[in-house]
């Protein structure tokens, strides 16, 4: 990182402190509320919400059906929902179908089930390329799909948010829902990874 870059970072941090202190003095924002929102997104919501939904869908066929047909109700049943997830669509991977999610126009993402998105999801590289060359991007990210697997890209261009239901890995038959949830990664629910099998 260059000296200039460090200087710019310090400048932006100071600018944000100036804005926050002014807005607090004017009674426009409440610092305690800002603290609590940051804490909520750092601690209370994250990919574990989505992982528990996926694990239940793998172990409870009736729930899987509800999740695919009435996702908002099925997600609410697990106690999740909220900002940036008011209309969910769940898309299931199959042996010959792989789904992957993007928002090319901004960075829409189902916050209430996956937490806030990773930097790569918001990057120009991902947003520009995944719609145009999904097979190459997925290969670079570690998912090498043969040509006979159809790739379905979902560009979240409106207020619908997408969750990928990944395939249950081989060798996971004996695991409990909690153990299964621990295997499910954030990237698998975006569609840029597969769920790894359990390690012995």
């Amino acid at each position, binding site marked *: 990182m260059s000296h200039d870059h460090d200087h710019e970072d310090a400048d932006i941090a100071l600018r944000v402190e100036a804005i926050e202190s002014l807005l607090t003095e004017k009674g426009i924002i409440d610092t305690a509320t800002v603290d609590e929102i940051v804490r909520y997104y750092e601690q209370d919501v994250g990919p574990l919400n989505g992982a528990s939904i996926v694990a239940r869908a793998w172990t409870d066929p009736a729930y899987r059906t509800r999740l695919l047909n009435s996702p908002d109700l099925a997600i609410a049943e697990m106690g999740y929902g909220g900002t940036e997830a008011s209309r969910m669509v769940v898309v299931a991977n199959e042996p010959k179908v792989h789904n992957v999610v993007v928002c090319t126009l901004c960075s829409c993402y189902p916050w209430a089930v996956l937490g806030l998105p990773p930097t790569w999801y918001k990057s120009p590289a991902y947003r520009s390329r995944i719609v145009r060359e999904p097979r190459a991007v997925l290969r670079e990210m570690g998912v090498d799909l043969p040509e006979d697997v159809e790739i379905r890209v979902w*560009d979240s261009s409106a*207020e619908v948010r997408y969750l990928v239901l990944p395939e249950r890995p081989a060798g996971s038959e004996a695991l409990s829902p909690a153990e299964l949830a621990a295997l499910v990664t954030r990237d698998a629910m975006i569609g840029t990874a597969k769920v790894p099998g359990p390690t012995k």
Partner: protein
Amino acid sequence: MNGIHDMGGMHGFGKVEVEDNEPVFHERWEARVFGMIQSLSGGNIDAGRHSIERLDPVSYLKNGYYGRWLAAFERGLIGGGALTQDEIETRMKAGASAPHATAPASRWHSRATDYVRKVDAPPAFATGQAVITRNHQPQGHTRLPAYARCRRGLIARVHPAMIFPDDHAHGRGENPQYLYTVRFAAGELWGDAADANSVVHIDLFESYLEATA
């Protein structure tokens, strides 16, 4: 608008860089910007997105996602009369220090905003129907990506009517329209560069679409 934000299909941004075990926020200022904006939310998300789109392309790319949020937030505060540029500069020169809360806030609960609205007319299109997207290029906000203009697709799903962002972003009312998930073959979008055996689904409002044979 034809802006830098409309990135689908662009070349030149390089490899997707993935950071292992990434924190939710990398810098304190990112968390504060996010928290301040969320604490004031209840605003108009379409206007918020359009405010980010209107950043000049260099600013848009320079400080990443939260840098964009900050630039748009600051412009909104100054434009709305809540702060002046002078106040910010003066406070920075004085070596602003972050305020500290005197008492904890009550617990935050994420709330869903529902964009669905009832309309009297039935949807114009049905699942399986062939459509073509219009050559829609407003100077203002739209959710029809440039890469999907004048392209043929099939209606994959009919959603309820929702707030129409192209109007709502500009304070012209909610004017709800039906939303459709439209499936496009990769070849229709990307021609000779298309990935074999892939499709792109895009969520598009009714007025972006026309029926085709």
